[in-house]
């Protein structure tokens, strides 16, 4: 039984692509057969974050237009043989693909993969519509900032209107020191406002920058962000994992734990 998950946010720069790369790699580490699809036509990035940019021959638009077979365009990951990437086209625009074409493509891929993960472009235009067309569930990525949360709220409304079965929230780039000082909204605050299930919180971790530089997702390593992403992967597969202690403060940990129980 395969699941199609769209990773979306509305606002750009909150960590959709990083999340897609890490969640995809993490699920592959848990022995799932995973394909990542970059649906950001014209601004492709998932390939560089995955470190696979030098292997691209065909892309999503080629597949959709029938210039090549699906198998020819899939790029096997360098570390996990059960992880694949379908890159986006860099030289085309969003209108090169339609929601119907995406649905058809995803239906074909369902047979071969446990998880199909779609990296959605920022915005709510055609690219967004393409990305959510064939999705079963969505993971909404936001940061604890007013602009990102406002956009996330808009996205949630649009996804509800499109009758997605399930929506989960990742609060990304949390800085516990700022939350403690009261200068950043807490996970509680964000969940309170957006009122959807929290599937994980990821701290603002400089290791993310390093891993992106190297083109190797950090999920599963010893960094806080690496652990947080792996926990998210466990939760995606349905396992219950307590929320990670992102700060040293025990009170906050208790708060997080109780928060997760609530949902």
């Amino acid at each position, binding site marked *: 039984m395969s699941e199609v998950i769209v990773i979306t946010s509305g606002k750009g720069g909150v960590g959709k692509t990083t999340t897609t790369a890490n969640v995809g790699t993490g699920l592959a580490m848990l022995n799932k057969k995973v394909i990542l699809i970059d649906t950001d036509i014209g601004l492709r990035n998932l390939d560089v974050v995955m470190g696979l940019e030098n292997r691209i021959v065909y892309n999503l638009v080629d597949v959709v237009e029938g210039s090549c077979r699906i198998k020819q365009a899939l790029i096997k990951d360098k570390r996990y043989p059960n992880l694949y990437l379908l890159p986006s086209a860099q*030289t085309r625009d969003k209108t090169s693909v339609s929601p119907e074409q995406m649905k058809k493509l995803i239906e074909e891929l369902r047979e071969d993969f446990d998880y199909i993960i779609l990296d959605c472009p920022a915005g709510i235009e055609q690219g967004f519509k393409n990305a959510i067309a064939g999705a079963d569930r969505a993971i909404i990525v936001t940061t604890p900032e007013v602009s990102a949360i406002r956009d996330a709220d808009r996205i949630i409304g649009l996804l509800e209107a499109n009758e997605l079965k399930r929506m989960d929230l990742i609060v990304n780039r949390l800085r516990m020191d700022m939350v403690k000082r009261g200068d950043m909204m807490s996970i509680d605050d964000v969940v309170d406002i957006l009122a959807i299930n929290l599937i994980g919180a990821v701290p603002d971790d400089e290791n993310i920058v390093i891993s992106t530089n190297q083109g190797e997702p950090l999920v599963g390593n010893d960094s806080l962000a690496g652990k947080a992403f792996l926990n998210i992967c466990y939760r995606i597969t349905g396992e219950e994992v307590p929320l990670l202690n992102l700060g040293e403060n025990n009170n906050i940990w208790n708060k997080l734990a109780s928060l997760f129980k609530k949902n």
Partner: protein
Amino acid sequence: MEEGMKKFMKQPVIIKSNPYGIMVMLEPMIPFEQLLTEIAEKFKDSSKFFKDAKMAVSFEGRELTIEEEKKILDVITENASIRILCVIDKDKEREETFKKALDEAQKNVKIDGGQYYKGTLRSGQVLETESSIIILGDVNPGATVISTGNIVVLGALYGMAYAGGSGNNKAFVAALDMYATQIRIGDVMARSSDKPVKRKKSKFDPKIAYVESGNIYIDSITKEAFSDMQ
């Protein structure tokens, strides 16, 4: 065929196209001078369609002397801007030979001729040429250069370079700073190493990529490298 011919012959000149050029069917009975005027008119009408095309031409339906053929060719080139590369007769075998000659001629034209582009090619931009290309600037990651001939980058090549686009393995890619994500020459492809390459900022080391026994080799540009290339 005979039936068809008769029907067509109501028009004194008929132009038919095939993959390598055009076939001109000529009425056998009318006087040659009249035929010339008809040809002129026909090609004038379709001059837009043929604009600057290079093609091979064959004549059917009428026996032509060499002189007549020459006159017809002159009329065609005068009235439509076509560059006639050769005239083919009906013989299949010879058509094949001519086709090969034509393909070869075009390949050479493309490699010998060159264009240049000044400026930086940025991500998402594609520069495609029907000749060799010299780029005065950088080719950034995500940008693509496609040429049927050679590619020379007087700058840094970070993006994708595809030389010998029509299947010519003798083409090459040269750059002052060679950090290409992917290089394709003819039908051979190579990609950069997965480990991040240390950028040597201080050392000036222009490189050239070429195909030898089915593999792409990248060498520093030296006299030896040129003599190694086939």
